[in-house]
């Protein structure tokens, strides 16, 4: 009889709070900064 071992779907582990804050800051200082500079440069 074949045995089936399930692999339960799991959400990838959520990064720690500090890492998420760092990610947000990097996005703000790249995408956000470039956007703001592009707005003021005209």
């Amino acid at each position, binding site marked *: 009889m074949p045995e089936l071992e399930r692999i339960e779907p799991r959400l*990838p582990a959520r990064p720690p709070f500090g890492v998420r804050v760092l990610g947000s800051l990097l996005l703000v200082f790249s*995408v956000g900064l470039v*956007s703001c500079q592009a707005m003021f440069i005209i």
Partner: protein
Amino acid sequence: MADPMKTPPEQRRTLGLAELLLGVKPGNTGDAQALQRPRATGTLLYILPIPLLIGALIGLGAGRLDAVLVDGGIFALLMAAADLTRRGLKAEHAQQILRFTRLQRIPLKTIGGLLTGVATGLAAFLSLDHGVALSVVYAAVAMLGFHLLYGFEPLGQPRAFVTRDERARKVAAALAEAERKLIELEQAAKTIANPELKVRLRRIGVQGRSILNQIADRPTDLFRARKFLSVYLDGVKQVTDGYARTHRLADSRDLEQNFRNVLVTVEEVFEEQHQRLLKTDVLDLDVQIEVLKKQLEREGLQ
């Protein structure tokens, strides 16, 4: 749902301010709600590019077509990236309810992350006239931030089962195929307006899933449930698709009644199948108990 008027006053809970303002239903908070909604929604990616839109509008006012095209184009790219990311996050979350199949997904979140980086680099190069090197650094920082906040999708196709031999692989494939049919059935049910038929189809979906669960627990049941997997699931899916297509064009009472009859029969067949599999479990257990009893008697333990 319990009637709040029948609940004794001391057991009634007070609604929080957020529940009152946002209209959140009592009892629908906490973990259950967290399971229903993706944890991250990608809102930041929609907010950060807004200055580019303002820049494009200012450029329009100043008669600068180049600024309009560059800022507007990059804004559109970043919005597309945000949308892909949001879809990717939702799809990642929706995957959690599937038990036997892992849908071959387009890595939307990864594409969203790459697009965010490329658009940021383009903005730095075209709009701000930074050099290639600095633009690449901007793109890399944006992608790193994206990765830390949302994460890229893992490479490779996720699997539902650890399959060690050929037979187990066959059972896993049959279960995945059957669950895919059930998903299509549930999707077709959403397009049907009649609430009664919708409920019946949803019930058939639930019954189907419980049969699949049973097969997954005891793979030998697959051979007993072959007819269910090959004939009935296909049949009900085809009929539902046909009904979903036709009832929008022609609102026929006869057609509706026929479809209802088919669904009633399918519900009965599924229930019968479920009971038959359960009965086999009981029979098998009976046999095992009998064998054990005989063995104990033989060895003089009883």
